[in-house]
C-alpha cells in the first residue's frame, strides 16, 4: 500500500478546472435548436377526484403542447421497485403537488402564467398526514392497510430477557422530513426522433434507473431510449428516483411535439414537489443488566413514505438493519414498517434510513446510561461490538476493529473528559450552558444483502486511439469525486499517470450499467470492478505480446495505440460477483447485510445560550475507520459536508407542513447553515483495509450523516439536563421544554438555578 503513487494522493479533481472557471455545463446551460420549455400543472389538494379541468380564456392554448395521462404510450407509472407511482394523475390525486398535466411552449416566461391560467377542480377526499393517522387506518389510502412494506428482524430469544433485566429502558424518538437542497434544481431535456427514439439529458444520479422507467413509460425498446447525465449540481439522494419522473415528463412532451423540451424546476417547485428524507418514529424497549450490558430489546421503527411506495422498502430495510447500531445485541426484535400518507412521496437522502434509526439508538444509549447510572462513555464501552461478535442480523464482525480504542481516541481528540467536568462546573451559573455529546456508530457500504448480486453491476475500461485509457461506468459524478477516484484507481492499477486516464460521460448508449450511484458503493464496489477491468486491459496487451511485465506509461500508451489500430477496439468488462463470505437470507432477513462497515465515533461540543435558546456547535471531532483513504481531500470533503448536513438535520432544517404541503419552500425559510454558522470540523481517519473494496476502501459518502444529530442532541441534553428526543430541535422547542421543566414562563430564573 505504501508504494501506491496515485491512490491515496490528493490528485486534482478531474473536472475541477471546468467547475472553477464556469465552463462546466449543467442541464440548464444547454440549449438545443428548436427547443421548447415545459412546465407541470400540479394538484392543490392532498387527496381527491379530479372533476373538471378548465383552460383559462386569457391564454391561447393552441400555441401550447399539452400532455395528459391519455398521451402516455406505455404504462402510466414511474417504474422503480413496483409500478405504483403514476407519471401523471389520472382521475385521482393522492398528494399535493401531484403532476396532472404538462405544458410546453417556446417562451419560457409564458409558462408560469399558463400554469396559473389552468384550473383544476376536485371532489376532495379525507386525507392523512402523519404516521399515527396512517396507523389508525380510518382512511386507507394505499393497498389494504396503508403499509408499503414491513420487515421483522429477530435474533436470539427476546421474550426471555425481560425477567432477567435489572433495568428496562423505554424511549420514543422522532426525526422530521429533511430537504436535500442540492443547489442545482432538478432539470431535464428530452428529444424524440421516430427512428432513434427518446434521448434525455439531465441532472441525475442513476442513468439506468431513468432508462428503465422511460422504456416502460414510452413503450420503447431499450435500445431506443438513451439517457445522458449532465454535470450535476449536488444530489445527496434527491436525484436518485425523482429524475425518472421529470425525464418522463420531458420525454412525453418531446414525443408529442416532435421538438426537444427542457423542464427546469425553480426552487419553490423543487422543494414542494420532490422527495425528502422519510420522517421517522422509533420506539425502543431495552433490557439491561445490572452492570449496564444490553441483554436484548425490541425496536419498532416506522417511516412515513408519502403517497406512493417508490423507494420506501429500501429505506426501511437500511434503517431497520442499522437500528441496533454498533453494539452487541444478544437478543433483539426489530419491527419495521413504512406507511403511506398524503404527502409527496419521500425518497433517498444520504444515509437512507440509517440517520433516522441511529439518531434514536444513540439518544437511547444516553438514556440507558442515565437509568443505569453510568456515563455515556461507559455504557458504550460495555456494549460496543467486538471482532467475532455478531450484529443484529447475525453478521460476524470479521475485521480487527477495536471500537473501544476508537472511542478512546475520539475522547482524547475532543478533550472530552476535561471538558465534561469543566462544563458541569461552569454551568452552575450564567446564561450560557455548555455540553459535550458522543455518537458511536457504523454504516454499511454497498447495497444491502443480496442487493449487489441483484444489481450485477458491469463496468468497462477501454483503450483509445490516442493511447489513453477510459473508464466506462454509469456511476455519476455529483461532487463526491467519482470521476477522480475511479481514474486514480485505473492509473494505479495500470501503473500509468493520472493524466493518462479519463472517464466517459455516463450515457446509456456508451457505458454499461454499473448500478446506481447510491449506497456509498461507488468507490468500494464499482471501484473494485474498475480495478479488475483495468487489469483485464493489461492482460490483453500482454497476451498480444505488445507489453512486457514492466513498462513505462509511454510504452503502455504505445501498446494501446497499436492494439486499437490493429483490432479496432480494446475493451475489458468486469461483472460483480458476490463474495462467498457475504451470505444473506432475504426471507429471514438474516446474515451478512453488507460486505463492509465503516465505523465512527463523533463528539460534539455545544453552547446553549439561554437568552435565546439557540445552540451553537463550537467544536466537532469526527473520527472514522474507512478501510483506506483513496483521496485525502475528497474524503475529508465528504465527511465535513455530511456533518454540515447532519447538523442541519439536528438544529436547523425543519419542513413546515400544512395539509401535506411544504409551506416553507424557499431558501429564506428553509434554513441550512451558512459559513458563519459552522465551527471548524476536525476530521480524522483510521485505515484497516477492506478486502471487498478497491485498494481497501470502504464507502464513506453516507457515514458522516449518521453521527452528528445524536452527538449534538446528546450534547444539548448534557448542557441543559433536559432530554430532547425529536429533531429538528429549534430554539422554540428548547424554550418550551426548559420552561415546562421549570414550571415557568421565563428562562432567567432557570439559569440561576443551574442544572
Amino acid at each position, binding site marked *: 500500500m505504501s508504494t501506491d503513487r496515485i491512490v491515496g494522493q490528493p490528485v*486534482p479533481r478531474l473536472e475541477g478546472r471546468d467547475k472553477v472557471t464556469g465552463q462546466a455545463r449543467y442541464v440548464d446551460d444547454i440549449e438545443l435548436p428548436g427547443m421548447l420549455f415545459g412546465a407541470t400543472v400540479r394538484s392543490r389538494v392532498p387527496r381527491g377526484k379530479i372533476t373538471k379541468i378548465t383552460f383559462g380564456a386569457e391564454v391561447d392554448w393552441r400555441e401550447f403542447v399539452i400532455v395528459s395521462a391519455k398521451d402516455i404510450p406505455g404504462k402510466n407509472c414511474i417504474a422503480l421497485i413496483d409500478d405504483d407511482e403514476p407519471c401523471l394523475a389520472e382521475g385521482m390525486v393522492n398528494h399535493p403537488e401531484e403532476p396532472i398535466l404538462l405544458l410546453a411552449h417556446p417562451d419560457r416566461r409564458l409558462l408560469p402564467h399558463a400554469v396559473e391560467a389552468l384550473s383544476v377542480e376536485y371532489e376532495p377526499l379525507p386525507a392523512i398526514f402523519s404516521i399515527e393517522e396512517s396507523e389508525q387506518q380510518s382512511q386507507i389510502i394505499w393497498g389494504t392497510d396503508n403499509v408499503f412494506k414491513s420487515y421483522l428482524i429477530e435474533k436470539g430469544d427476546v421474550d426471555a430477557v425481560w425477567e432477567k433485566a435489572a433495568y428496562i429502558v423505554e424511549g420514543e424518538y422522532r426525526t422530521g422530513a429533511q430537504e436535500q437542497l442540492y443547489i442545482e434544481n432538478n432539470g431535464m431535456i428530452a428529444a424524440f426522433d421516430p427512428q432513434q427514439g427518446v434521448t434525455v439529458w439531465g441532472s441525475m444520479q442513476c442513468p439506468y434507473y431513468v432508462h428503465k422507467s422511460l422504456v416502460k413509460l414510452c413503450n420503447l425498446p431499450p435500445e431506443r431510449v438513451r439517457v445522458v447525465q449532465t454535470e450535476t449540481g*449536488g*444530489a445527496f439522494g434527491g436525484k436518485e428516483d425523482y429524475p425518472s419522473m421529470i425525464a418522463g415528463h420531458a420525454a412525453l412532451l418531446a414525443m408529442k411535439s416532435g421538438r426537444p423540451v427542457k423542464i427546469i424546476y425553480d426552487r419553490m417547485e423543487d422543494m414542494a414537489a420532490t422527495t425528502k428524507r422519510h420522517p421517522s418514529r422509533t420506539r425502543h424497549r431495552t433490557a439491561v443488566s445490572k452492570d449496564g450490558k444490553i441483554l436484548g430489546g425490541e425496536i419498532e421503527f416506522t417511516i412515513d413514505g408519502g403517497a406512493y411506495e417508490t423507494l420506501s422498502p429500501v429505506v426501511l430495510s437500511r434503517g431497520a438493519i442499522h437500528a441496533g447500531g454498533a453494539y452487541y445485541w444478544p437478543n433483539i426484535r426489530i419491527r419495521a414498517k413504512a406507511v403511506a400518507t398524503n404527502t409527496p412521496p419521500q425518497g433517498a437522502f444520504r444515509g437512507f434510513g440509517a440517520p433516522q434509526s441511529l439518531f434514536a439508538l444513540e439518544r437511547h444509549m444516553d438514556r440507558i446510561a442515565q437509568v443505569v447510572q453510568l456515563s455515556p462513555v461507559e455504557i458504550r464501552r460495555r456494549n460496543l461490538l467486538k471482532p467475532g461478535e455478531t450484529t443484529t442480523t447475525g453478521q460476524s464482525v470479521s475485521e480487527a476493529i477495536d471500537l473501544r480504542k476508537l472511542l478512546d481516541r475520539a475522547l482524547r481528540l475532543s478533550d472530552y473528559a476535561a471538558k465534561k467536568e469543566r462544563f458541569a462546573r461552569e454551568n452552575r451559573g450564567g446564561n450560557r450552558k455548555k455540553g459535550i455529546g458522543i455518537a458511536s456508530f457504523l454504516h454499511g457500504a454497498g447495497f444491502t444483502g443480496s442487493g449487489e448480486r441483484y444489481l450485477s453491476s458491469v463496468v468497462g475500461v477501454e483503450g483509445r486511439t490516442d493511447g489513453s485509457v477510459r473508464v466506462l461506468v454509469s456511476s455519476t459524478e455529483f461532487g463526491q469525486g467519482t470521476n477522480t477516484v475511479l481514474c486514480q484507481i485505473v492509473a494505479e492499477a495500470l501503473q500509468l499517470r493520472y493524466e493518462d486516464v479519463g472517464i466517459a460521460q455516463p450515457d446509456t448508449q456508451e457505458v454499461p450499467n454499473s448500478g446506481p450511484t447510491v449506497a456509498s458503493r461507488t468507490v468500494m464496489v464499482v471501484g473494485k470492478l474498475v480495478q479488475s477491468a483495468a487489469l483485464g486491459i493489461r492482460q490483453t496487451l500482454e497476451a498480444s505480446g505488445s507489453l512486457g511485465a514492466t513498462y513505462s506509461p509511454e510504452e503502455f500508451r504505445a501498446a494501446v495505440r497499436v492494439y486499437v489500430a490493429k483490432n479496432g477496439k480494446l475493451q475489458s468488462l468486469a461483472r460483480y460477483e458476490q463474495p462467498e463470505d457475504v451470505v444473506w437470507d432475504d426471507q429471514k432477513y438474516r446474515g451478512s447485510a453488507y460486505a463492509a462497515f465503516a465505523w465512527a465515533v463523533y463528539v460534539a461540543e455545544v453552547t446553549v445560550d439561554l437568552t435565546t435558546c439557540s445552540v451553537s456547535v463550537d467544536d466537532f471531532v469526527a473520527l472514522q475507520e474507512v478501510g483506506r483513504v483513496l483521496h485525502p*481531500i475528497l474524503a475529508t*470533503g465528504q465527511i465535513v*459536508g*455530511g456533518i454540515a*448536513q447532519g447538523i442541519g438535520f439536528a438544529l436547523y432544517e425543519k419542513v413546515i407542513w400544512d395539509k401535506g404541503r411544504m409551506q416553507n419552500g424557499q431558501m429564506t425559510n428553509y434554513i441550512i447553515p*451558512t459559513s458563519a454558522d459552522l465551527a471548524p470540523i476536525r476530521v480524522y481517519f483510521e485505515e484497516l483495509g477492506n478486502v471487498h473494496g478497491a485498494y481497501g476502501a470502504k464507502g464513506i459518502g453516507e457515514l458522516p450523516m449518521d453521527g452528528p444529530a445524536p452527538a449534538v442532541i446528546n450534547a444539548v441534553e448534557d448542557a441543559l439536563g433536559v432530554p430532547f428526543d425529536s429533531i429538528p430541535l429549534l430554539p422554540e422547542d428548547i424554550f418550551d421544554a426548559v420552561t415546562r421543566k421549570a414550571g415557568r414562563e421565563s428562562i432567567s430564573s432557570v439559569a440561576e438555578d443551574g442544572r
Partner: protein
Amino acid sequence: MNESPQNRAECDIPFQVNGKLVAVRVYPMERLLDVLREELGLTGTKEGCGEGECGSCAVLMDGALVNSCLIPVLQAKGAKITTIEGLARGEQLHALQQAFLDCGGAQCGICTPGMILAAYHLLSTKPQPSLEDIREGLSGNLCRCTGYEQIVEAVAKVGRRGSGG
C-alpha cells in the same frame, strides 16, 4: 396570440461584461442573471434560488458583489460586470480558482462561480482576512456539499499569500 396585453417595449441596454462592451435588446425587467445566461451565453453564473439567498448568481457590478437574480437589467446600463468567465487570464487561472482546486473548495461546482466571486470581492476589501472575516464574507453564499471548511481554507491560502483581489 399570447402577447403581453400592454405591449411593453424592449430597449437597448449597453454595459460591459468582462471588459467587453455588449449591447442587448431586451425587456428592462429581464433579470441580469437571465440576460447574462441566455442573451450573452455566459452560463457560468447560476440560478439556485431566485430569491437572492444562495449567492449562486453572484457577479461583480462596478466592483461590488451583487446577486444578479435580483437586478433588473436596465439598472445594469453602463455598468462594468465581471462574471466567473472573466476571472482567468486565458489559460492562467486566478489564484482563487487554483486555490479552490488545490484545497477541494469545489465539489459539485454549482455554487463555485458565485463563491469564488464572493471570495474575490472579500479579498479586494480585506486582502488578508481572518478566518472569521472569511466566514462572514462568504455567509451570503450557500454550499450544500462542502460544509465550507475547504472553501475557507482556499480563501485563507490566497489571503496569506497577499496576492488576492
